[in-house]
């Protein structure tokens, strides 16, 4: 190899490092500024030069925020819906995944195709009829309209099935059956505890998806005091007089739980989300 090529070979990793690092910083910049802006007043945010470091208006912004919208209430709703959604999803998806992984039954193929099929249905198709159905059954402005419909998600069932078939031996279930344990008992007392890692992953993914869900609440939640966080934040966006400092403060507070969760469990989260992709 020529000397130039060899030099190129040595410089390439260095250039790579720099580019990737700069890219990473650009990725994180909006978050940084979100927190910085959350501590400045609106006029400070929109001034030349814009603030690069934290200011002292955070508490003021929070006060403005809570005066404009029932922020803490919305936070509460987001939390409630996310927790309910996670609990229900873990239950239903583990049930479904267990069924597919451990049993042979007549309609298995059909049902599995059905599960896969739901992943192909684009979400916008259901937007309007979901609204009309929710209205007909009186679920408008009810949190259950947010956590019940998607509880048995195809992704979750798939994830659970994957995990169960690769880490829970069939003989274990057989043995329990022979010992006289009821079917549901096997599920509840033997399989479920062994699923803890996968449950943790799915739980994280579901919690985050529910926390960030915007379109669902947009369609179904119509009164401001039932809004979840994304809706509440958006309601502050008005053509007249958006209180930007407060909006940033609200966004920052809304994002914080996710950042914390991510910091603790990024590895698991990433692995979980990409599990289905690498076959």
């Amino acid at each position: 190899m020529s000397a130039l090529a060899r030099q190129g070979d040595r410089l390439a990793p260095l250039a790579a490092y720099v580019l990737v690092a700069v890219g990473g910083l650009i990725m994180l910049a909006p978050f940084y500024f979100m927190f910085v802006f959350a501590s400045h007043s609106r006029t400070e945010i929109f001034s030349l030069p814009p603030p690069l470091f934290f200011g002292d208006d955070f508490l003021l912004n929070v006060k403005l925020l809570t005066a404009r919208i029932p922020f803490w209430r919305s936070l509460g709703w987001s939390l409630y819906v996310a927790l309910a959604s996670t609990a229900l999803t873990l239950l239903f998806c583990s049930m479904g995944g267990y069924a597919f992984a451990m049993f042979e039954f007549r309609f298995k193929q059909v049902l599995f195709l059905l599960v896969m099929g739901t992943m192909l249905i684009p979400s916008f198709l259901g937007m309007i009829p979901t609204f009309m159905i929710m209205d007909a059954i009186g679920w408008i402005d009810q949190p259950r309209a947010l956590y019940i419909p998607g509880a048995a998600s195809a992704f979750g069932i798939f994830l659970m099935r994957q995990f169960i078939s690769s880490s829970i031996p069939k003989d274990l279930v057989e043995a329990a059956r022979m010992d006289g344990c009821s079917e549901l008992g096997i599920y509840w007392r033997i399989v479920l505890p062994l699923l803890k890692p996968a449950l943790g992953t799915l739980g994280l993914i579901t919690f985050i998806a529910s926390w960030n869900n915007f379109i669902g609440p947009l369609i179904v939640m119509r009164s401001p005091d039932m809004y979840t966080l994304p809706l509440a934040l958006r309601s502050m966006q008005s053509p007249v007089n958006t209180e930007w400092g407060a909006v940033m403060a609200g966004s920052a507070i809304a994002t914080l739980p996710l950042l914390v969760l991510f910091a603790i469990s990024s590895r698991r989260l990433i692995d979980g989300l990409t599990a289905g992709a690498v076959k």
Partner: protein
Amino acid sequence: MRSATQKFKTAARSWAGLLLAGGCITFAQAQQSITVAAYPAVDEIAKAAVAQWKKKYPTVEVKVVSRAFADHHTAMTTALSTSSNLPDVMVVEFGYVARFAEGGGLEDLGIAPYGIKAQQARFVPFAFRQATAASGAVVAVPADIGPGTLLYRTDILKKAGVSEAELAQSWDAYVAAGVKIKAATGAYLVAHARDVKDIVIRSDIKPGEGLYIDAKGRVLVDSPRFVRAFELAKKVRDGKLDGKINAWSNEWSEGFKRGTIATQMSGAWLAGHLNNWLAPDTKGLWRASQLPEKAWGSWGGSFYAIPKGAKNKALAWDFIQMMTLDPQMQLSAFKSQDAFPALVDVHNDAFFDQPIEFLGGQKARLLWREASRKINAVDVHKLDPIAEEIINTEMDKVLDQGKDVRTALADAKALLERRVKR
């Protein structure tokens, strides 16, 4: 045989049931409430009125549900269409009254048991007409109006050697003044050329014509007033007299703070906004005048309505009467939120004679009072919001891409006609 425990349980259950039922009844009676759905700043006005309300109805709560302007109207539209989640009192803005009126979901407040028609003379004429549907039903009661005014920076005008008379004499004079202002001070005449278009299309509206569509469903967007509006706007843009700044954007408020916008046409309430948060430091530098070429227009305005599906119509009606017919309520709303009263009785109050500090001591309210009497009602059509969007799109194409005015209006007409036919 039933044991003592079982007997006790049954008895306890019955008593609990009775108590609960009784409690519920008394609770329900004590905690009656009406829901008022509004948007900023009418929500503040409604909330401020609760004290007065409590004097008459100490046991009836008033729940004011406030949403951002657009969200409020979307929510009300949806509520009316599904007949659920309806408030008792619905605040409707000027631009949406027609849509709701045509939909047929609002009570006719003109006839018994409301009978507001008998009080028609007490309201500013155009506002009352605005809330009257084609069938003659009065679907809402006007609360406040936004008489159009021209706010201008007197210091900038002085520097450019332009007088107020010059500015407001005619549209052509207005544009000519803009050229002078730009040359002498560098300030823009208007924030956006579109603003000029917005006023000119509202002038010279013949009876039976709506703003965009007439009573027979004919689309009017290629009529002379539209052509003139588009051409004037184009002239403003070609002369680089507008800042291409959208209303309510950060650049807009900065433009006011820094004096790069010389004039702004809007509802009279803008003076209040300027004073409160847009550009308080420019106090004393602004003056108000009537719109150029004696154009009379209204910007916004709120109405109170009762949906047909409301649960507490009698109480709702009492609330509305309080907000719209009580001079004291109207006056306090005017004083606190710049809500120009639709009730004519109030117009003789001394408050109107008071000089406005922000406007350098000018007694502008007299000006606006005069304007309010001259504004014509404009028939409204449920497709007005879409029409406005279509026209604005074409306006942008004319201004930004040099599209020909006649072609643009023809395209707009075609687009709108498609929708009218549905």
